[in-house]
């Protein structure tokens, strides 16, 4: 599947742990995450991420990029035509490389997932 392969490209960036794609409504569309992340738990997380982004949009700030800083890790979010690309990474990730790669991946993701 092309979307899975594209998400795999992100793991070439040092510090990236995994990634997933969330629909604007909060559905988990695709994932490429380590095995310890269960699908049910990830679905719940995806819907919470979508709620946060919706809250921002509702107040006049439709997010194109976003970062959740967890201290030891980060969740980087990029909007694309079909939803949001979320990349989980460690705190030492090179944000510049991640930004560039994630934008390319987001652009390449097919409109139908």
């Amino acid at each position: 599947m092309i979307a899975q392969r594209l998400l795999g490209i992100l793991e070439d960036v040092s510090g990236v742990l995994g990634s997933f794609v969330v629909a604007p409504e909060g559905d988990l569309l695709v994932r490429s995450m380590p095995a310890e992340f269960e699908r049910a738990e990830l679905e719940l997380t995806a819907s919470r991420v979508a709620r946060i982004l919706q809250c921002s949009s509702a107040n006049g700030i439709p997010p194109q990029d976003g970062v959740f800083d967890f201290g030891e890790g980060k969740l980087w979010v990029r909007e694309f035509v079909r939803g949001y690309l979320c990349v989980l990474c460690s705190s030492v990730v090179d944000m510049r490389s991640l930004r560039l790669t994630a934008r390319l991946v987001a652009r390449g993701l097919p409109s139908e997932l």
Partner: protein
Amino acid sequence: MKPALFQSQLFPSRSVPSERVPSERAPSEEPRTGIVRKMVARPSQLRAIAAVRPRLQAPAWRCLEPTQPEPRQVSRRDSSVSVARVSREGERVRQSGPDEWLPEAAEFVHRAALLVAQGLGFERCRSVCLQGPRSVLSVTDAGPSTITGVAGPARQLSNVLRNRGLK
């Protein structure tokens, strides 16, 4: 016989002009006393003045300084940054700026981001920064009991974007 006081001692031949009605005096005959008096211009002189300095006829005062640019009309979103400080229980500690929604949104984002962090195996979420096409929303832990929310134009919050790695 006129008193000697009115006669020039240096040029005795020059005599004091005889007294005439002021309106009959020619401008070249005016004594140079330093006192200014209103001149009544003849119609031909008025036309000449008007040709050279037409603004003399303008009724209003003018500023002689170079034209200043008019104040830029800015939208509310362009003008200022909003800051809200909220306790973890959701009480407003401090708020400034035009975005009334910010305290509630900051509290919601912080609570949801904590659940996102826990769902991904972390203890807490230190900050969330969301960048829109022109604006930014940032929610940060501001100590053990308070959260700070900031919203405003991306131009003015570029340092926040840089610190979060979004720029």
